[in-house]
């Protein structure tokens, strides 16, 4: 019977009239006019697709998926000052967000205090919050029950310091560390590959990552110490298949580094999570999630010999694609975000941030942020897509794409292995080259009209759409700098010096850095001072510019 059907589909595929366009997804896979059973054999069998909540988790990591627990609606709620960000986050929670997330301003991201000369003009920038000292952390989390709400920090190179401030604040509030939940992005590998917010060379950075991982293992067992992120790779230009392959390869690297540092795989793997971007191509994106879950599960069980089924789970947070948004006819972005969000939900995400439509023009307004939040609520409550688990399983097209995505990822893993692994591939410029190539080729396709972007290269309007824009607070930077100078003046200076000396010594040796950092932040040693001291020991990284 199946064989007969196959023949009929091959027959009708040949009869489908083809236009002159070639149909390709963003990863460059050629898409056929029609898919049938033969496209998913011989891989098509029960064990590859399985059931939701069962190995290899192609259909999702939970048995009940959204019927029991909706994905976490986790919107970024950051504004320049810690207290404004605090108010914003509470407002988002009150409007129905179920998780919170903070991103940092550029100086904090680059390990510099607000009063650093290089920070001028960027304090509170990029929609992020300025964190210099424990005082800022205190204001940021004022009134938020740390033992009840999971908190995500979009923090990378400075994660050890942010984690230290978070732990110090919990201690101050008499909350046991083991009660803290949340996530530190803390994915240093993708910084070298794409986001470029690194300070030290890759190896000392990895040591700090492993220090935070070990610290969480020992004292904060419910906190996710790393969220392995493909989002930034994709924003820099990586195609969806490259995003998936590079992210998974980075994940395996953290697993190997953890094991090499003496941890057993099941002691930390269950707390690693992931972060994907959802691109414009609807089905390709869904296939990316399904393939990633399967690849991770297989590797964790077969290669890394994890016994705990929780170690096999590819748990993922998603954000819609900022780089797909256009400055032209910005309201069109509302539709893009909606389609992308729907795709992430059908892909089985655990958590979702929807972008605001004005992001290609400016930092979002409160109004556009609310609309982004409501988009998720409408998908969740009105569209009916959550009524059944993984509704697309068994679709010839989706399963074929999933298989293809999986197979292509293995090709990238081989290339990376040939280069000596992820860190060595970074040092050899592999990622910089591939990502720059993909970004350039995407731009060329748009300019040649081979890829349509509505409002940009088709259906163009010459009249400008006026939208309301958020105005940055012109006074904020001056106020932040002066309060920081004040804080620095009123500390126990001898203690600050002693703390920094201790950090310098620990950086030179093999011990975990976290206890010294917690000690230092309690004495109001600032983030910039700590990172500056670490740079003296570890040196600074400069990348070769490849474009």
């Amino acid at each position: 019977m199946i064989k007969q059907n196959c023949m009929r589909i091959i027959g009708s595929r040949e009869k489908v009239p083809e236009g002159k366009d070639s149909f390709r997804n963003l990863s460059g896979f050629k898409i056929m006019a029609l898919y049938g059973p033969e496209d998913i054999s011989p891989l098509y069998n029960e064990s590859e697709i399985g059931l939701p909540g069962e190995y290899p988790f192609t259909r999702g990591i939970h048995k009940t998926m959204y019927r029991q627990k909706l994905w976490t609606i986790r919107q970024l709620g950051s504004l320049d000052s810690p207290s404004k960000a605090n108010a914003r986050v509470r407002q988002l929670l009150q409007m129905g967000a179920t998780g919170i997330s903070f991103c940092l301003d550029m100086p904090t991201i680059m390990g510099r205090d607000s009063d650093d000369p290089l920070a001028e003009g960027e304090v509170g920038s990029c929609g992020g919050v300025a964190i210099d000292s424990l005082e800022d952390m205190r204001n940021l989390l004022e009134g938020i029950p740390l033992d009840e709400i999971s908190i995500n920090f979009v923090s990378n190179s400075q994660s050890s310091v942010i984690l230290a401030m978070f732990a110090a604040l919990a201690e101050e509030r008499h909350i046991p560390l083991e009660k803290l939940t949340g996530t530190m992005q803390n994915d240093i590998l993708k910084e070298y590959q794409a986001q470029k917010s690194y300070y030290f060379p890759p190896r000392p950075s990895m040591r700090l990552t492993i220090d935070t991982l070990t610290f969480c293992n020992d004292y904060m067992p419910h906190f996710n110490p790393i969220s392995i992120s493909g989002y930034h790779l994709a924003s820099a230009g990586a195609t969806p298949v490259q995003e998936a392959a590079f992210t998974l390869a980075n994940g395996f690297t953290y697993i190997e580094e953890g094991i090499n540092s003496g941890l057993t795989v099941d002691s930390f793997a269950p707390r690693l999570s992931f972060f994907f971007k959802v691109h414009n191509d609807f089905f390709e994106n869904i296939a990316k999630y399904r393939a990633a879950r399967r690849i991770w599960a297989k590797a964790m069980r077969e290669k890394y010999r994890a016994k705990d089924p929780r170690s096999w789970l590819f748990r993922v947070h998603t954000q819609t694609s900022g780089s797909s948004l256009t400055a032209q006819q910005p309201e069109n972005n509302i539709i893009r975000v909606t389609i992308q969000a729907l795709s992430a939900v059908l892909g089985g995400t655990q958590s979702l941030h929807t972008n605001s439509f004005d992001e290609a023009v400016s930092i979002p307004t409160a109004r556009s942020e609310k609309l982004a939040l409501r988009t998720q609520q409408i998908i969740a409550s009105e569209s009916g897509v959550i009524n059944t688990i993984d509704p697309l399983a068994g679709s010839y097209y989706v399963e074929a794409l999933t298989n293809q995505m999986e197979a292509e990822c293995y090709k990238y893993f081989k290339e990376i292995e040939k280069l000596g692994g992820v860190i060595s591939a970074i040092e050899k410029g592999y990622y910089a080259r591939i990502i720059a190539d993909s970004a350039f080729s995407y731009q060329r396709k748009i300019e040649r009209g081979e890829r349509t972007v509505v409002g940009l290269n088709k259906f163009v309007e010459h009249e400008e759409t006026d939208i309301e824009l958020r105005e940055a607070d012109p006074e904020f930077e001056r106020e932040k700098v002066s309060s920081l100078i004040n804080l620095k003046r009123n500390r126990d200076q001898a203690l600050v010096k002693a703390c920094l000396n201790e950090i310098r010594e620990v950086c030179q040796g093999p011990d975990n850095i976290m206890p010294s950092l917690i000690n230092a932040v309690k004495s109001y040693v600032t983030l910039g001072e700590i990172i500056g001291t670490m740079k003296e020991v570890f040196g600074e990284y400069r990348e070769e510019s490849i474009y």
Partner: protein
Amino acid sequence: MSNGRKRRILIAKPGLDGHDRGAKVVARALRNAGMEVIYAGLHQTPIQIVNAAIDEDVDAIGLSILSGAHKTIFPKIMSLLKEKGTSDILVFGGGTIPKKDWRELKALGVGEIFTTGSDTQAIIDYLNKTLER
């Protein structure tokens, strides 16, 4: 080309932000169009950029800013160029720069702003036309 040499363009990312996709795409497009491109790399201060422009004897500087710091960085670079007597170097920019700020930037002497969605050919044409004068 009036002086018979290839046009030399410095592409730079001033400030702390590392979003370099646009800067790199533009750098490659200009190189492919036959210009000599010097990509200054990430995290450059205004003085580093101006010094590099002078050392490399460039015809134009392209600045990519996505962090919102354009109102601090452009004035600094323009005044440094003036100070060094090199105001003849053309400055253009791109990134996330709201249209309402363009007039202010152009009043400082910034030649043109190319934001999200700009065609790289438009940048090439602009440079060819403006540097011809």
